[in-house]
């Protein structure tokens, strides 16, 4: 039986555990049977979480743990093998958090000899962890406190031996101040953005980590890897032609044209093209682009490094992605790309998720618009839609927990608890705020947000936008067929997040909803392809059981009240998602998943995926 499998590549088979309270380090062996069932990355993170983070654990308590998990392709000699996962109990939702990042840390963690690094306990002093091959040391220094992320990285690298490159993860002041949506910045521009993983690290007095190593990742068939890489590069040259040129921000203009762009805190879904032109990718490229940025081993290099050279935001520099532009731009009524870049930079330097950071500024703007708050509530700072300068200042207020930022930094659920009358203006599902796609423009995204394992997320929940335009069976305003669409996208995303490959590149490797790719065979010596979707579905069911243990069922698979209001203007004027429409999509989705009407996996479903151990 293949559960006795010994992989011939792709895994180091080792996990590093650091007890921060006792300052003890241990190296554990990982049972290959677990990789067989859960692949790596997100799957292994979920299994670990089930075993080690119980339902009573609070996100910022000493009992919480945080793990970083690579997949078999992380660091493999292919392309775009840059991704790794962060798993913890996150403060933004108060629940299980899975988060995915690019950068060099994941691959270098593997070169240090580890498929995973786990942190538990709390350090007595503020410290940075340095991992070099299998050695760990602590760099204690109270001076870490208060440093922005760029300063932290520079200071950390300055303490490290020269020679081979180091990879880093750092948190900023927002995390130190407990902002529920604070991020972990990975290397010099990538992030575990969503869900507040930064605050978890900071709660353990971990300011930064650095890693490097000189172990070669074992690979089963290097020649096959090279051949697959060559073919992937050719494929991606065509299908991702614009990613290099314009980055993901290329979608701003089309999504606005289709009437699905969050505008003024999702009050509408569209702006006149002449106005929206201020924040489209071509504008960013023509006026602010300086160079491309590539993640580890990536031939696409979609990162767009931008810099503002003049005006009130002169000196600002960032790498805005679609989400950051959408939420810091149109959703805040801001159509000045320089302001968006400055706000993106502020989020990066303070260590905050650009999506929730921007959504929270949008909330503040709407509160001012409606006269529900005044300058006196915000230390004199008035934040109106369209005011880019105030937007940047408000992000600082949130990080510093000043003025309205004191409450806003609690995140959606914390705000609603304190100010229930503000709930209509907060766009979230299960605590995570919406991505830059208004579901009234693509109804499948409504189901995606409502059922996303970590709360409203266009990636984890399933990116339906493309499918909803391509499908020959249903269109974007239908509710029929969306259950199957979302399920399939979620299952695929779950296995992709477990491989270590960047999703932008996956088409080049044939990693689809019917994968036939031999890439995992080439890396590990085992042909995972026929089982990948099943593995993805297993992961989703395990994660749903984790959420069940944390009190989640259908009652939390919701959309905010604004989605039940008709779009007032633009290409999707009149569109809404009623509760009946959502219920129809949920019923369909649960049925296809083998879940009951409460949204909980049935016994036979758990048996199918060998998850009976979650029933207790």
């Amino acid at each position, binding site marked *: 039986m293949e559960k006795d499998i010994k992989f011939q590549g792709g895994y180091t088979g080792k996990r590093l555990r650091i007890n921060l309270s006792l300052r003890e380090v241990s190296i554990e062996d990982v049972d290959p049977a677990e990789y067989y069932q859960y692949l790596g990355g997100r799957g292994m993170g979920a299994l670990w979480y089930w075993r080690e983070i119980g339902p009573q654990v609070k996100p910022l308590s000493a009992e919480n743990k945080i793990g970083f998990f690579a997949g078999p392709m992380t660091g493999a000699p292919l392309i775009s093998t840059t991704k790794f996962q962060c798993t913890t109990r996150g403060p933004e939702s108060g629940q299980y958090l899975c988060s995915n990042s690019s950068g060099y840390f994941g691959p270098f963690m593997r070169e240090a000899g580890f498929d995973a690094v786990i942190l538990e306990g709390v350090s007595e002093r503020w410290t940075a962890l340095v991992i070099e091959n299998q050695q760990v040391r602590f760099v204690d220094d109270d001076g870490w406190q208060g440093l922005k992320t760029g300063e932290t990285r520079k200071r950390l690298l300055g303490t490290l031996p020269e020679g081979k490159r180091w990879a880093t993860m750092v948190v900023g002041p927002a995390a130190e101040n407990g902002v529920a949506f604070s991020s972990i910045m990975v290397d010099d521009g990538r992030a575990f953005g969503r869900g507040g993983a930064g605050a978890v690290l900071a709660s353990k007095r971990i300011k930064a980590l650095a890693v490097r190593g000189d172990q070669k990742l074992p690979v089963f068939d290097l020649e096959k890897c090279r051949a697959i890489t060559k073919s992937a590069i050719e494929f991606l040259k*065509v299908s991702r032609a*614009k990613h290099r040129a314009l980055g993901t921000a290329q979608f701003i*203009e089309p999504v606005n*044209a289709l009437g699905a762009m969050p505008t003024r805190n999702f009050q509408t879904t569209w702006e006149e093209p002449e106005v929206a032109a201020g924040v489209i990718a071509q504008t960013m490229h023509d006026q602010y682009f300086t160079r491309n940025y590539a993640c580890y081993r990536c031939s696409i290099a979609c990162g767009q490094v931008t810099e503002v050279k003049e005006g009130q935001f002169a000196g600002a520099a960032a790498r805005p992605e679609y989400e950051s532009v959408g939420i810091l731009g149109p959703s805040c009524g801001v159509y000045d790309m320089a302001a968006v870049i400055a706000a993106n930079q502020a989020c990066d330097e303070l260590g905050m998720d650009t999506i929730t950071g921007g959504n929270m500024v949008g909330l503040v703007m709407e509160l001012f618009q409606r006269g529900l708050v005044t300058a006196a509530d915000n230390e004199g700072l008035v934040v109106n839609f369209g005011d880019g300068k105030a937007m940047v200042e408000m992000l600082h207020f949130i990080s510093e927990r000043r003025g309205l930022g004191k409450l806003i930094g609690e995140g959606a659920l914390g705000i609603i608890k304190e100010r229930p009358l503000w709930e209509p203006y907060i766009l979230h599902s299960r605590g995570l705020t919406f991505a830059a796609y208004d579901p009234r423009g693509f109804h499948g995204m409504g189901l995606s947000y409502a059922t996303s394992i970590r709360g409203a997320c266009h990636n984890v929940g399933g*990116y339906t*936008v*493309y499918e*909803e*335009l391509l499908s020959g069976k249903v269109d974007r305003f239908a509710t029929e067929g969306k259950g199957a669409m979302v399920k399939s996208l979620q299952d695929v995303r779950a296995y992709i997040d477990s491989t270590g490959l960047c999703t932008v590149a996956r088409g080049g490797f044939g990693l689809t909803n019917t994968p036939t790719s031999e890439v995992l065979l080439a890396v590990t010596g085992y042909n995972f392809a026929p089982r990948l979707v099943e593995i993805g579905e297993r992961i989703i069911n395990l994660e749903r059981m984790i959420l069940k243990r944390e009190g989640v069922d259908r009652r939390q698979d919701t959309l905010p009240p604004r989605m039940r209001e008709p779009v007032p203007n633009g290409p999707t004027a009149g569109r809404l998602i009623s509760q009946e429409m959502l219920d129809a999509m949920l019923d369909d989705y649960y049925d296809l998943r083998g879940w009951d009407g409460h949204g909980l996996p049935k016994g036979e479903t758990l048996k199918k995926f060998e998850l009976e151990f979650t029933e207790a």
Partner: protein
Amino acid sequence: MTRVTLRVIGGLDLELSGRTTMVEFPDGAAVRDIPAALLALGIDCTSRKYLVALNGLGLNQHPQDQALKDGDALLAIPPLMGG
């Protein structure tokens, strides 16, 4: 003649990129006639490089024999994907 607007956006590598153009179809033209007309303008509807929508819906989400009318709007965009 039936006049349909064509807007090409999202930074596509096309001569028409960033513009709104009028495309003329003979009277009685239907949705099924769109791909050939766009191919003549350099837009291959079957290519992985583009996604074409008519009146906000995917081309193949309209009945293929649906008659085109003045004021219909075509949109050519890059294939959308999450970031």
